[in-house]
C-alpha cells in the first residue's frame, strides 16, 4: 500500500491508532527511513571505547555501524561496510585496533575512517585516490555527558534541543557517581521478543499494567517474604513486589512527557524500603559533592526514561537499554549496566539484581511482558483487528501537550505523545 501523508495521518487519532502500525512491512520500512534515520539515536557510552582504537560494532536504526575512537581520541561512527564491495568490515562485537582490514580484498581502514592501504593499488586505475574511499561516516555524531548519539541525516535539531528537558535523566545517572563518572559493562545483556519495537516503548512507562500482568510474580515474591521474613533479602524480591502496588498509588506518581516523543515515570520501586541507599554510598556522595548537592541528586526519583525512538535510561538503577528494531515482528534489546565510579560495592550489587530482573531474558517480570507483546503482535496482524485504544486519563478539552507536561502516573499520555511524534516524522518525506 502507498502511504501518502494523508494516509499516515489517518492511522492515528488523539486516543486511537491503527493496529497495522505493528506488523505492516511498508510502515516498518518507512519508520526506518523517516524516524530512525532522522532522530538522534543513542548507540553507546564513551566508557565502552575508552582507549584509542577501541571500537564497538552495533546498530543505529537499520544500519550496522562501528563506533570507533580514533588514535587522537576522537569518537567517530561509520557504517560497518567496506567502501569497495560493500562487505561487512568488522565481525567482532568489540575490540581495539588502530586499523581494520577488510576480509575480502584487504583494504585497510584507519580508526579515523581513512583508507590507508590497498593491495596492488595500480589495478584500481590511475585515477584511484585513497581520499575518495574512506569509510562512510554517520551524518552526525554528538555526545552528552559520555553518551554517544548518532543521526543518519545531516539536517535536524541539535542533540540539545532533541533531548530538551529529558537530558536531566542522563544527568540523573551521571550525577549519582561520587567521582562524577559512570562506566558501562563491556558486554551487554540482550534479549529479543517477537514483536514490534513500539510495543516495548508503549509498555515500559505503563504503570497501570504492572499489577495485573505481573500478578503471579507479585504473589510469588510476597509469599517468599511472608514465609522467610528477615531471611528474604534478595534484591529482586522488592522489585517484584513493587509491581503489585495498587493502581491508585501508581496513579499518584508523575508521568512526564516532552517533545520528540520522550517521557519518564517517577520512581516507585523504593516505595516500601526503610532506606533507599546503602549508608556507605550516601556518605561517599556527601563527601564528594557536599550535603546539599548529594541531597538534590538522591532526591531525583525517576523510574525510567524513554528516549524515543532508540533507548531507555534509568539513573536510579544505573541502566541503559538500546532498542534495535530488526523487523516489524522482531526487536532486540541491548542492555548495559553502569558502575558509578567511587560508589561502594553494595550499590553495584543492588543494581546487578535489578538489571537481571528487568533486562535478562530470564527475568520473571519481563517474560510476562514478552508474552503480551507477542500476543499483541499476532492479533494485530489480523485484518479483523479494530483500533488500539490509548484513551486512559485523556482530557478531550486539553490542548495536545507541548514541551514538558506532567500527567498522572497511570495515564496513557506518553503513548499518545509517541504517536503524535510518530505521525510528525512519518508524514514528512525524507530529504
Amino acid at each position, binding site marked *: 500500500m502507498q502511504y501518502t501523508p494523508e494516509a499516515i495521518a489517518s492511522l492515528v487519532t488523539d486516543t486511537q491508532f491503527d493496529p497495522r502500525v505493528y506488523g505492516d512491512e511498508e510502515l516498518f520500512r518507512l519508520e526506518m527511513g523517516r524516524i530512525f534515520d532522522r532522530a538522534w539515536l543513542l548507540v553507546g557510552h564513551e566508557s565502552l571505547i575508552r582507549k584509542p582504537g577501541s571500537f564497538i560494532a552495533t546498530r543505529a536504526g537499520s544500519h550496522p555501524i562501528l563506533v570507533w575512537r580514533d588514535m587522537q581520541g576522537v569518537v567517530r561512527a561509520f557504517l560497518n561496510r567496506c567502501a569497495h564491495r560493500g562487505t561487512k568490515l568488522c565481525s567482532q562485537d568489540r575490540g581495539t585496533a588502530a586499523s581494520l582490514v577488510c576480509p575480502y580484498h584487504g583494504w585497510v581502514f584507519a580508526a579515523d575512517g581513512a583508507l590507508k592501504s590497498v593491495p596492488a593499488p595500480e589495478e584500481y586505475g590511475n585515477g584511484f585516490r585513497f581520499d575518495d574511499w574512506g569509510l562512510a561516516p554517520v551524518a552526525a555524531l554528538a555526545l552528552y555527558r559520555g553518551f554517544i548519539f548518532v543521526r543518519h541525516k545531516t539536517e535536524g535539531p541539535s542533540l540539545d534541543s532533541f533531548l530538551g528537558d529529558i537530558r536531566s535523566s542522563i544527568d540523573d545517572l551521571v550525577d549519582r557517581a561520587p567521582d562524577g563518572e559512570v562506566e558501562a559493562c563491556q558486554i551487554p545483556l540482550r534479549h529479543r521478543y517477537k514483536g514490534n519495537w513500539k510495543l516495548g516503548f508503549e509498555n515500559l512507562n505503563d504503570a497501570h499494567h504492572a499489577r495485573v500482568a505481573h500478578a503471579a*510474580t507479585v504473589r510469588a515474591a510476597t509469599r517468599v517474604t511472608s514465609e522467610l521474613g528477615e531471611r528474604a533479602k*534478595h534484591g529482586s*524480591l522488592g522489585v517484584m513486589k513493587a509491581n503489585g502496588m495498587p493502581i491508585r498509588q501508581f496513579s499518584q506518581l508523575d508521568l512526564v512527557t516532552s517533545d520528540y516523543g520522550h517521557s519518564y515515570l517517577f520512581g516507585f520501586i523504593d516505595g516500601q524500603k526503610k532506606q533507599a541507599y546503602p549508608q556507605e554510598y550516601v556518605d561517599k556522595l556527601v563527601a564528594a559533592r557536599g550535603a546539599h548537592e548529594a541531597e538534590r541528586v538522591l532526591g531525583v526519583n525517576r523510574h525510567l526514561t524513554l528516549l524515543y525512538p532508540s533507548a531507555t535510561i534509568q539513573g536510579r538503577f544505573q541502566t541503559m537499554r538500546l532498542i534495535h528494531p530488526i523487523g516489524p515482528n522482531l526487536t532486540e534489546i541491548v542492555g548495559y549496566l553502569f558502575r558509578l565510579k567511587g560508589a561502594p560495592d553494595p550499590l*553495584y550489587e543492588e543494581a*546487578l539484581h535489578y538489571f537481571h530482573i528487568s533486562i535478562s*531474558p530470564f527475568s520473571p517480570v519481563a517474560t510476562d511482558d*514478552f508474552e503480551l507483546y507477542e500476543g499483541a503482535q499476532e492479533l494485530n496482524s489480523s485484518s479483523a483487528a479494530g483500533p488500539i485504544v490509548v484513551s486512559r486519563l485523556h482530557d478531550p478539552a486539553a490542548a495536545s501537550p507541548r514541551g514538558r507536561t506532567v500527567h498522572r502516573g497511570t495515564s496513557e499520555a506518553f503513548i499518545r505523545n509517541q504517536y503524535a511524534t510518530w505521525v510528525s516524522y512519518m508524514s514528512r518525506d525524507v530529504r
Partner: protein
Amino acid sequence: MRPASDDIAVFLQWEAVLLDERRFDEWLDLLAEDVWYWIPLVPEQRNPLDGPSHVYDTRDALLARVYRLKDPQNLPQQPPSRCCRIMGRPFHVATETDAKHGADTVVRTPFQLIESLPHHDAEESNRQFAGTITYGLSTGGNALRIRWRRVDLINSHKGLHGVSILI
C-alpha cells in the same frame, strides 16, 4: 579428566528428572539452604558479582521463581512448557569461581535441554539450550546437596527470547 562417582552422576540425573517433571518441591530439597543459582552472561565471569549475569539467585529469589512456576496464572507458562534434559557424564573440575562457597566437590556436566514452548506451532515449538552445568556439591553427612549451581549456555551472550523455565 576424572569422572565423578556413580552416586554423583545418578544424583544429577535425578535432579534433571525432577525439573523435567516439574517436581519443584523435591528439587528444592536437593539444594543447600544457602544455595546459589547462577547463569552468567559469559564464561569468563569468576563470581556472580563480577559483572551482569542472567540469573544470580539465592534461595529466597529462587523460591520466588518456583512459586511463580507453580502459579496457574503465570503468563508465559499457560500451559507449562514440557522439557527434556539430557545430561552428560559429570567429571571433576577445579573450581573456577573465586570461592568454593561450602562445596567440597566441584563437578561439571555438558547438557542439552529441549523445551516445547506453549503457544507455538509444532515447527517452532521445540527450542534448544545447551552448555555445561557446574555444581558445587557437599558430599559429607547423609546426603548430597547442591551448594551452588552455575549454568553456562553456549549462547548466553546473544539475544535470547524470554526463558520462563528453570535451566
